[in-house]
């Protein structure tokens, strides 16, 4: 993507992007209509070697990962641009543009994967797609229109970056707003389809003998809004992690201090975005879980206590690993902050809380044991550790881990500042008391949860994150008067961060991607033997829940394929940036 050359060149870039999307969609439509006609009429068709289910699963997940990226990045690009305008900082503006550069190739890959998914569904699952067509046909043309619009405005947003500066910046910000509005439009339309499969509404009958009684109810189903919120946050989180990985790659490949400084800062911003969006994500997940339970207790119980129960242990390990990695990155990053060494003494207690929390999270309620072992224990649960395998312990652990990570981040922010105001002692005292109160409250509710019925315990789970949230807000508010007029102990030495930290950024990116794959599998799998839960049964050869080992293998392969494509994106973005800097 070349720049300069004014509006003609900018529009040439836009034209090329729209042309690419048009070609991809035209080919996809042709294949989607022609391929099924080459086969006999059937409810299902078999894909050789890997089977239809694994094919659709892999393509859908890879498509979702790229879609999350292309929908999440513009959100924080826009925010970074706004920050740049308010702070009058060219650095933030340049950073936003740098992030946007990653998207051009990503759009092509996203569209291609989406096209393959469409062809696969129509060809391999014709009965299912007929059902979905009956319900959602009016949304399809609208969806394609929004895709075209999103592509158009995104390319325009990027290519007009240098042209709409100064007094014309407001128009560029408007373009950014339109890009994000359209992106959210794409998200909510597709969430309606996905949510309908889990928690259908607005239809009567079953299988293909359905009557659509309310397309609005089919669209705005139980899972729709929770998915909107959860996926919006997850997109931002995921996008931040991937750009952080890009920055890590560029840092490790840098040949000058200036480059290293630039990409160190980019990596920090990317990881900050990922963590900031990651913090509220569990609560959005609780909302989704609550709506699933409200729709069908059986589906909810299958998810948490049935076939998929053990996968939450894996999720817990992934999230625990994320928390450890985030904290490690921040502690490594403090090495480049003059004055950061003052807070080294907090590493040990924070690490203790994180490690304990991870251990609690990784502890299952029921363990694999032989009959003799179960007899010796008296049940399928460990006599002592079994109590850690239930919701009370796990909720307590995660809230403490969030609290610890927040403390680490606050210490990072305080790194090179020395407070000098009169409010230091009082402010710090209030913060310490608030921290102890939050800690005590979280633990107290966790312990109390063991002594009350399940329904009460579920209700109590909302109070723990509320305490965490209240503490965070209070802490942040108190930081302002405490550090008013603070002196600096020295500028942050960007670029002088240990190289290990960049591998941590990659660790974050891979773990977030794996987590997304795992959650996607669980969300989809809790439908069990239904294409559309309680409305359309799955009677294909793939109508069974695979073993956890098989599922994790498929997820791992999908993650590898995703990073293979992402490496292409990184390479192209790097080449584009080098071409801009040193045009031929």
């Amino acid at each position, binding site marked *: 993507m070349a720049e300069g*050359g004014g*509006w003609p060149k900018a*529009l040439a870039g836009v034209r090329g992007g729209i042309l690419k999307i*048009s070609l991809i969609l035209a080919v996809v439509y*042709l294949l989607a209509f022609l391929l099924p006609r080459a086969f006999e009429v059937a409810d299902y068709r078999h894909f050789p070697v890997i089977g239809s289910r694994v094919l659709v699963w892999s393509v859908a997940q890879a498509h979702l990962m790229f879609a999350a990226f292309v929908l999440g990045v513009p959100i924080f690009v826009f925010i970074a641009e706004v920050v740049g305008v308010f702070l009058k900082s060219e650095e933030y503006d340049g950073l936003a543009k740098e992030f946007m550069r990653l998207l051009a190739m990503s759009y092509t890959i996203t569209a291609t994967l989406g096209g393959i998914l469409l062809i696969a569904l129509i060809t391999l699952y014709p009965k299912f797609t007929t059902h979905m067509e009956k319900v959602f046909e009016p949304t*399809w043309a609208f969806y394609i229109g929004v895709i075209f619009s999103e592509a158009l405005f995104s390319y325009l947003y990027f290519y007009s970056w240098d042209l709409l500066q100064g007094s014309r910046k407001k128009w560029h910000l408007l373009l950014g707003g339109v890009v994000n509005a359209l992106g959210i439009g794409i998200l909510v339309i597709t969430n309606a389809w996905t949510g309908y499969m889990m928690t259908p509404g607005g239809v009567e009958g079953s299988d293909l003998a359905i009557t659509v009684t309310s397309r609005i109810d089919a669209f705005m189903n139980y899972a729709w809004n929770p998915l909107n919120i959860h996926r919006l946050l997850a997109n931002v989180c995921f996008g931040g992690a991937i750009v952080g990985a890009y920055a890590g*790659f560029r840092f490790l490949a840098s040949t000058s201090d200036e480059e290293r400084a630039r990409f160190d800062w980019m990596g920090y911003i990317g990881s900050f975005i990922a963590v900031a969006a990651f913090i509220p994500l569990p609560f959005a997940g609780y909302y989704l879980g609550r709506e699933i339970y409200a729709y069908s*207790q059986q589906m909810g119980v299958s998810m948490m206590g049935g076939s998929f129960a053990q996968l939450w242990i894996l999720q817990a390990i992934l999230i625990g690993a994320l928390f450890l990695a985030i904290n490690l990155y921040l502690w490594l990053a403090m090495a480049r902050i003059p004055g950061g060494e003052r807070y080294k003494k907090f590493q040990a207690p924070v690490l203790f809380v994180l490690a304990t929390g991870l251990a609690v999270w990784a502890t299952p309620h029921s363990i694999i044991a032989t009959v003799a072992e179960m007899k010796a224990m008296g049940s399928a649960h460990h006599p002592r550790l079994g109590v850690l395998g239930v919701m009370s312990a796990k909720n307590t652990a995660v809230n403490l881990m969030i609290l610890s990570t927040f403390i680490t981040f606050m210490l990072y922010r305080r790194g090179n500042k020395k407070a000098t105001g009169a409010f230091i002692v009082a402010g710090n005292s209030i913060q310490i008391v608030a921290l102890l109160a939050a800690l005590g409250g979280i633990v107290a509710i966790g312990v109390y949860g063991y002594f009350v019925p399940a329904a009460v315990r579920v209700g109590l789970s909302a109070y723990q994150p509320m305490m965490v949230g209240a503490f965070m807000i209070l802490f942040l508010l108190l930081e302002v008067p405490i550090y008013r007029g603070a002196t600096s102990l020295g500028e942050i030495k960007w670029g002088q961060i240990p190289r290990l930290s960049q591998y941590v950024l990659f660790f974050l990116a891979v773990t977030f991607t794996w987590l997304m794959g795992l959650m996607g599998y669980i969300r989809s799998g809790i439908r069990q033997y239904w294409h559309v839960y309680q409305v359309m049964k799955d009677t294909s050869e793939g109508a069974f829940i*695979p073993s956890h080992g098989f599922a994790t293998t498929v997820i791992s392969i999908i993650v590898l394929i995703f990073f293979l494509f992402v490496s292409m994106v990184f390479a192209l973005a790097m080449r584009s940036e080098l071409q801009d800097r040193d045009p031929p």
Partner: protein
Amino acid sequence: MRTVFLRIVGFVILIDLFYMGIGRLYLTQSEEHPPPELQITVETDVDTLVGMGESLLKNKGGCLLCHKMAEVGNTRGPDLRGVGGRAATRRPGLNAEAYLIESLVEPGAYVVEEFATPGGESIMPAADRPPADLSPTEIKALVAFLQSLSGEITVQVTAEDVAATEARKQKPPAPTPSHPGFALLNSKGCVACHDVIGTTRRVGPALTHVGERLSAAEIRQSIVDPDAVIAEGFMKGLMLKDFGTTLRAEELDLLVGYLSGKIALAERLAHPAVHLLVLILLFNGGVAWAARRVGSLGGASDSAAVSERKMPWGWLGILAAAVLIGVLYLVFQDGESEPPAAPPTPTRAPAQVLTTPPETTPETAPAPEASASISQAPEPLPGEALFNVTCTACHGPEAKGVPGLGKDMTNSEFINGLSDQELAEFIKLGRAADDPLNTTGVAMPPKGLNVALSDDDLLEVVKFIRSLSE
């Protein structure tokens, strides 16, 4: 650069393998397959019934997700140990069997206090609805097992239970017409007299491939003025003459379009390929126009800008050709006057995809006498098929009557007052329009004009009619 790239690739693979390893080594490994269908009849003995009930409780019913039957288990619902004994006294006025059945199909009718939600409601879904979706016989089997838990087994599977279970299975899925005109042939009763999917009809001419014999105008005339031209070998006055007024204009267009194979323009324009073409032309055209406009405003002095104003004619040409060919093929191909084959009705996938039935784990294996019947679809009752062929034209596809023609059979005192033999005789003879006992003023032809019906056929039709009012 290459070294950095390879190190990163290796690191990514390592993390990936780590998580995969946890999934393969740390978690339990078992597949979960759909539970098999159980064959429960009135002859099923008690012990087998109890065994089937236990299987249903542990598998298809999913009961153990919330209830426990041992010291250790889930406590979202009441402990099932001893429930057979408690059931008799739980609700005044209900014996054990009735209470257990109510608990399964109407769980909200009585909720054990400690398991009620703050609003006093039950969290348990009805067992005879999805996702458990237990049939009447399965409900009885489950009750038998629950009664066996410290109680007396009184429940019995009746013929009505079996018939109701069969009726649930025999609900056919809707056909998947490729054209809404085919759906109209069904809903307007044309299929009662005309052959459209290769079955035998004797009342009206076959409509398969009618587009090859008649033009669209002739087909339209046959619908609105059926006596204008009578096909050789068929009688005048048999087809209803009011389709011209009872059908909406668009319904008539759809029927004619479907039968003649000519797709109406409005329908062509609603094709998704046309939507895509419009969007492609709109966006590409719009951007191209903007690019040329901006280029012309910028002047010709900037050589770089001028070179960038060149349209990618090659790409556009390829794009336009691909889209045009595709749209021409998809939109302007003739429609089908012959509908697709009716989709298969088995509860498992058809032979093209599935060649072996799903596996069962030892826990899900059915009780010894039970046989899982998964891969074969049940045959429709002969009476229903004969009824569809003969009677629906006047009495409607669901026998609920057609205004001005036949009466509602599902709620008829006249039908309920006749024995099977009397009703069969009545159908055999029919009733003239001027018969004093005729209440509609419309003649019912003998055997509904289906002269091929034998006495046995008539009794089968009667049997089906009886089932409609149960």
